[in-house]
């Protein structure tokens, strides 16, 4: 176990070192961007140069940090709500065909609701507090978890369920000791997708009505032509999403190591 845990911790570190290609590409793109703005390709008030964004990140660090904490709290709590709702719903849909048939169309419909339309309604209804943000974040991010968890449940070998019936295993125990562990890698896949859209959801929710958060900073900065600050907020949101994604990858390695015993690297498929 300890060897496995150590390997689970060391491998992502190695995988990160192996991300030099990503670093190289990123540096090239930033370089092109910088040159384009510096050579007068765009008005710095509309498209700030990377060095201006970096400067804003430093100059506005107090503002960005305090608002980041607000958004981070919303996103983390929102994902928690999404995960709990999604697992409960997927389990209910897995056990009861009636629920599955009844809920599935609504589930898909829920994802077609334009968030810029829904978010202001929620703000009018529930106020400027955290509740409407949690609802928006949970709404945009629970779907992927439900779908991948259901797929995980469906991937349980029916022969295995027949086998344990001959051992007189109860339905309840079969769920907890067979179906749930089998679905766990799927839950993680869904959660990884969920954290990315959760960050977008948080920005929409904050734009609709709030007095703090990176989405609020973004919304306030643009009309004042503080575009570098707006870009800085976006960069921080991106870094946050990447960090959440990596944290989930690590948690997945520690929780479901059997799904990775073939040596698949972070973000890479088998070669």
């Amino acid at each position: 176990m300890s060897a496995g845990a150590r390997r689970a911790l060391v491998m992502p570190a190695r995988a990160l070192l192996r991300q030099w290609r990503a670093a190289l590409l990123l540096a090239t793109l930033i370089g092109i961007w910088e040159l384009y703005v510096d050579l007068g390709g765009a008005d710095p008030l509309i498209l700030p140069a990377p060095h201006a964004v970096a400067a804003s990140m430093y100059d506005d660090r107090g503002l960005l940090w305090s608002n980041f904490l607000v958004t981070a709290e919303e996103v983390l709590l929102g994902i928690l709500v999404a995960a709990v709702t999604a697992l409960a719903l997927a389990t209910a849909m897995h056990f009861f065909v009636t629920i599955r048939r009844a809920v599935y169309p609504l589930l898909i419909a829920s994802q077609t609701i334009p968030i810029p339309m829904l978010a202001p309604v929620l703000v009018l209804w529930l106020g400027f507090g955290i509740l409407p943000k949690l609802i928006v974040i949970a709404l945009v991010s629970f779907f992927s978890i439900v779908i991948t968890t259901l797929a995980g449940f469906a991937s349980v070998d029916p022969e295995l369920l027949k086998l344990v019936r001959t051992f007189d295993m109860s339905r309840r125990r079969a769920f907890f000791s067979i179906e749930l562990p089998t679905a766990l890698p799927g839950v993680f896949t869904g959660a990884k997708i969920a954290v990315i859209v959760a960050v977008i959801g948080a920005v929409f929710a904050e734009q609709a009505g709030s007095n703090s958060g990176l989405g609020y900073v973004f919304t306030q900065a643009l009309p004042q032509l503080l575009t570098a600050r707006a870009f800085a907020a976006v960069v921080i949101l991106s870094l946050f999403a990447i960090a959440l994604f990596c944290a989930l990858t690590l948690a997945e390695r520690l929780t479901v190591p059997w799904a990775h015993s073939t040596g698949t690297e972070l973000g890479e498929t088998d070669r």
Partner: protein
Amino acid sequence: MIETPLQASRALGADRAGHSEQAAAPVEIDRVSRTFRRGRRPAVQALADVSLRAGAGEIVAVVGPSGCGKSTLLELICGLQRPDTGTVRCAPAALMPQRDLLLPWASALDNAALALRAAGVGRDRSRQLARPWLERFGLAEFERARPAELSGGMRQRVSFLRSLLAGKPVLALDEPFASLDAITRAEMQGWLDHALTAEPRTVVLVTHDVEEAVLLGDRVVVLSGRPGRVVACIEVALARPRRRADPTVVALRERVLSSLGVGG
């Protein structure tokens, strides 16, 4: 000559049957038919008028071509299906599937103990109970290994042990070695013969492999192609362990093959 536990148990079974005509055998299948209907597709008859009996401690091998309803037969024995006509009277039976179906996240020990956990035995206690069996079956050093770290033969041994520890009087083995290479399969056949000698059970062994049927079975029941009907029932009254080069074994194998309509 010293009697092995298996022979003793068989003698006991025969004895019991002798004393009382009513004493039911662990497996009694009487004129069973089973047809599957799926939507608008034509009905498929898997079994037609099949009868089969296995006395206590007997190993009955069932051979037949693909699609002769062998798996259906085992599911009837395990109570996973009911016959359309005829009767199935069986003592509780545990299945051993063709693919090992071990839980990839669990150690060999925990996989072997799955049936104990199913019966509500606690984790520690079930490990305690399963451990000596892993030792007996030559898997002691692999008790912590996950299935991915085990060879095909070892996985089948863990799978067999898991079904054995269900503690049911009947074992229904569904082509247990079909997925193994020829050398490992030969080893595992010897191993299973030995294991069942040490730990006798009433066994219904379904197989494609005619030689396996003759090497392991006390009786070989030959089924026809779909729908499965019993076309022959051949007694194999040979001492164990049997050798595949033994002329009697070879002759019996030819008999089974010819009743399948092959070779000759």
